[in-house]
């Protein structure tokens, strides 16, 4: 039952998004703009600064993810549908899960564009170990989105939400960023360090499990007025 509710919420958000493509197109364009700014800063005389690609990829993911998080609940606020959503006879954690699925899907779509662009603009061999990179990106995205979705939901009623979201989110998700950047740069070496990358994947996955459990547990008291 909770899982079905989560999928229904995902379907609702997906149908609204497909009609306008508002969040997806703006997030994608923002992510690409980020990469362009970085490439002006870090590509000198035709060749990129050493080891910059991993950091740039993850910064672009975090920035565009923050932007998307701010917009996901904005729609509920504008339409004044948040209360209706919370009043629905559905378990609260299912609502959180539905929003989280949507967020992860959105961030994945952005990454599908970001990763090839980073590989292209910074001459990074990102596709030398595609499976490991995919798992690392998936685990990192879930970790970032799980904490982000909770904070974005809590901040819906706050006046200063635009500035508060990054202030709260970045310090808390630093373990994900460290693991993501370190794991990706292990894969980008001339001879990819698979053991190192696997260890970072294990650390992010543990973070994911702890964060999602905590979020499911806290969503109910946090969203009760």
């Amino acid at each position, binding site marked *: 039952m909770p899982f079905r509710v989560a999928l229904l919420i995902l379907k609702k958000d997906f149908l609204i998004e497909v009609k306008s493509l508002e969040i997806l197109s703006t997030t994608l364009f923002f992510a690409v703009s980020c990469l362009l700014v970085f490439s002006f800063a870090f590509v000198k005389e035709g060749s990129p600064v050493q080891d910059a690609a991993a950091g740039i990829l993850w910064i672009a993911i975090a920035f565009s993810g923050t932007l998307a998080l701010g917009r996901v609940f904005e729609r509920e606020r504008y339409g004044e549908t948040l209360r209706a959503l919370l009043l629905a006879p559905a378990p609260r954690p299912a609502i959180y899960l539905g929003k989280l699925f949507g967020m992860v899907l959105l961030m994945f779509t952005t990454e599908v564009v970001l990763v090839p662009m980073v590989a292209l603009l910074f001459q990074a061999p990102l596709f030398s170990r595609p499976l490991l990179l995919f798992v690392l990106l998936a685990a990192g995205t879930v970790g970032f989105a799980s*904490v982000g979705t*909770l*904070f974005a939901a*809590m*901040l819906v*009623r*706050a*006046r*200063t939400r635009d500035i*508060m979201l990054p*202030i*709260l989110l970045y*310090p*808390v998700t*630093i*373990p994900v960023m*460290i*693991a993501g950047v*370190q794991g990706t740069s292990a894969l980008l070496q001339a001879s990819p360090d698979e053991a190192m990358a696997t*260890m970072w994947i294990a*650390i992010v996955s*543990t*973070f994911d499990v*702890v964060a999602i459990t*905590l979020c499911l547990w*806290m969503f109910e*008291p*946090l969203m009760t*007025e």
Partner: protein
Amino acid sequence: MTRFFLPVFGVTALMFAGAPFVIADAPYESTMLLVQKIFYFHVPAWFVMFTAIFISGIWSARYLFKGDRNADRVAFAAAEIAVVFGLMGLVTGPLWGRKAWGVWWQWDARLTMALLLEAIFIGYLLVRKYGGPGSEKLSAAMAIFGMLNVPFVYISVNIWRTIHPKTSVVPTLGPGMFGAFWFSVIAFMLLFALLMHLRVRLEQQRAALDDLYLAEEP
């Protein structure tokens, strides 16, 4: 606690007044000499910060799940004190590091963790002040995440090079240093208890005043 406030205050004041003599009296460390003396401030400051963080995290959870408003005041007071003592640690650390390591800052596991916890709890105070109505719950979530983030940051940064003296130096201190060290720790902990008491009382009275004000309105 109110009954004990004055005696505890007296003891703490005496201990802080005596601390310079106790610290000056402690023997010099064989390689770092005078620079090592900052240790008597630096380590107790972190002791207080970590105690405050755990109090803030646990009491935030109590507030969030049990709705105990007094727990929220305790968590808020502890978060504020954590930030103050964290700043003390972050100032005294580089002063020592400049002499002992030759650099002001290193991206070492303990330093990074301390900086992030400071950032998380500054975030706590910011959201508390500017978050608008309902910010108590938001900040409670922040404190819980802050507390649970400790192991993750520690493990992930520990894989980089660690040059900070290990926590295991504490039991191996020489006899003269051992006494001075625990003297400082007790003095700092007493100061922490006093500050907590005053801060929680202030919040309680503020809440009582708010209640009276609301009751007065037609």
